[in-house]
């Protein structure tokens, strides 16, 4: 594997800027049969909480035009099982592990960060202050600058791992939130998490999700995500990991041009579980053929000044 795509996100170095998004690639270990996950820039694992979580009542997923809704509710095996059972496998597989953490309070976030700080093989923490599918914490932390920076600071103080803060698209002024988490010590920003949506089965008159609302992801939200990355890029100095509806390599370029330094591929993993490594190949070919590096693309959208 060549270094042609290697990127530096603050203190975090990745062999390439293609990361699989939290919640859409499990713990990574499930893909051993069909691909070499060490070829990915990173794997952001399913959100981990201190205790295992069972998740929300079914149905939990449904498809919508150009996208999907999910209301998983952060179902996960919890810190202990992840560290004891999953991390050893991930280390053996040579995966670059970004741990997505979720807590219901500043203290829980800090406790998770403190514990993961000592876990071998964790490359970075991604702080999920933007989950729309939980009653406590989640998105509420992500829509105000004050609470976003509070969580960021709580995590920052207790870990020397690179800290990525994952933003919610539902914030009114995302550049402000971006600046707030930057000032609170985030090394990078990842964006965007899902938007809350709802779909009703008109035959049964019931919501198509057991939890009534869920998060919208997939190509449908790409224009919104690209716009937000562009806006935040102009406001902050730390790198942005862009995501939202990436379905092919061209979409990755779009996020880079808008201001992303790396990307995450989410819903598209369901369409094609090997899509992320295919994108790595295409990116390598693209940069090789042009003699350029991903970093040359960041924020390079050409805006004509409008008079």
């Amino acid at each position: 594997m060549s270094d042609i795509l290697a990127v530096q996100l603050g203190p975090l170095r990745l062999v390439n800027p293609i990361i699989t998004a939290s919640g859409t690639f499990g713990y990574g270990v499930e893909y051993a049969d069909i691909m070499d996950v060490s070829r990915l820039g990173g794997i952001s694992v399913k959100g981990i909480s201190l205790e295992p979580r069972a998740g929300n009542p079914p149905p939990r997923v449904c498809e919508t035009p150009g996208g999907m809704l999910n209301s998983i509710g952060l179902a996960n095996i919890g810190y202990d099982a992840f560290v004891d059972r999953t991390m050893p496998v991930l280390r053996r597989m040579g995966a670059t592990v970004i741990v997505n953490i979720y807590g219901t309070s500043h203290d829980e976030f800090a406790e998770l960060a403190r514990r993961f700080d000592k876990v071998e093989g964790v490359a970075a923490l991604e702080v999920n202050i933007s989950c729309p599918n939980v009653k406590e914490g989640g998105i509420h932390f992500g829509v105000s600058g004050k609470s976003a920076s509070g969580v960021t600071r709580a995590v920052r103080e207790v870990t020397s791992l690179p800290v990525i803060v994952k933003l919610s698209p539902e914030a009114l002024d995302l550049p402000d939130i971006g600046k707030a988490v930057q000032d609170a010590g985030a090394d990078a920003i990842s964006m965007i998490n899902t938007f809350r949506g709802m779909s009703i089965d008109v035959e049964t008159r019931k919501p198509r999700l057991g939890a009534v609302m869920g998060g919208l992801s997939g190509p449908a939200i790409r224009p919104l995500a690209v716009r937000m990355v562009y806006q935040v890029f102009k406001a902050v100095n730390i790198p942005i990991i862009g995501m939202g509806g990436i379905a092919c390599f061209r979409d990755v370029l779009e996020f880079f041009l808008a201001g992303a330094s790396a990307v995450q591929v989410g819903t598209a993993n369901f369409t094609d579980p090997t899509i992320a490594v295919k994108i790595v190949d295409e990116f390598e070919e693209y940069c090789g053929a042009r003699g350029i590096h991903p970093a040359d693309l960041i924020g390079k959208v050409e805006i004509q000044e409008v008079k």
Partner: protein
Amino acid sequence: MDYFKTRITRMEIPARDHVILWFRGDCPVEGDPGQFVMVRGNWGAHPILPRAFSLVEVGKEGAILVRNVGEGTNLLASMKQGDELLVLGPLGRGFSLPSETGGGVALVAGGVGVAPLVFLAQRLVDKGVKPVFLYGARTGADLPLRDHIDEICDLTITTEDGSVGEKGLVTAPLERFLQTNPTASVFSCGPEAMLEAVARVSVAAGARCQVALESPMACGMGVCKGCAILDAAGEYRYVCSDGPAFESVEIFGREP
């Protein structure tokens, strides 16, 4: 489990609103009855999620039986021989075959739930076990693979409108069968209400019953946690990784 591109080698319309797609050929899928594949055509942006289909073996070749119920299945039904399919599988846990079949085996199918049971019937017959096949539908036009089943084992059909076979629900012949075979193994796939009735009847008779469930899925391989169902103990189980085949008591409990 594998993920691959393949092509449709053959198509057949076994009943209205149903199509059988064969794709073996270059395709390494070899699964067990009750396992499934996630399938998508090469149709661009929408719909984005693949669809789950039980593996079938029809004429000794791997296939899926698709019932046309919505956007994705419509698209699959309108594909042509030679068109590309993207297939992930085999996935999930299939039925666990009984080591002991002296008490008899009943396969109870409702609607398109026939697919995994046809496959199971074939495997049982190959092993020298003759199951009885109880196949229920709303009406006689909705009985895909009926002739195929008839050829390999003993088939009893029930239709709600009485147009073919016995009039009524498929639980009626099952109850009769269980009266003479109370220690039989029952395998069932179909609408949830039917599965619950089948489970109840079986458990009441003292038979062991396995049911294959459905649930909306995104990944099909245990990563998204989207396919949760609530089991009898109030815990979430995942259809794609804990199932689709479950012991009926795990899901519907022991109460008759």
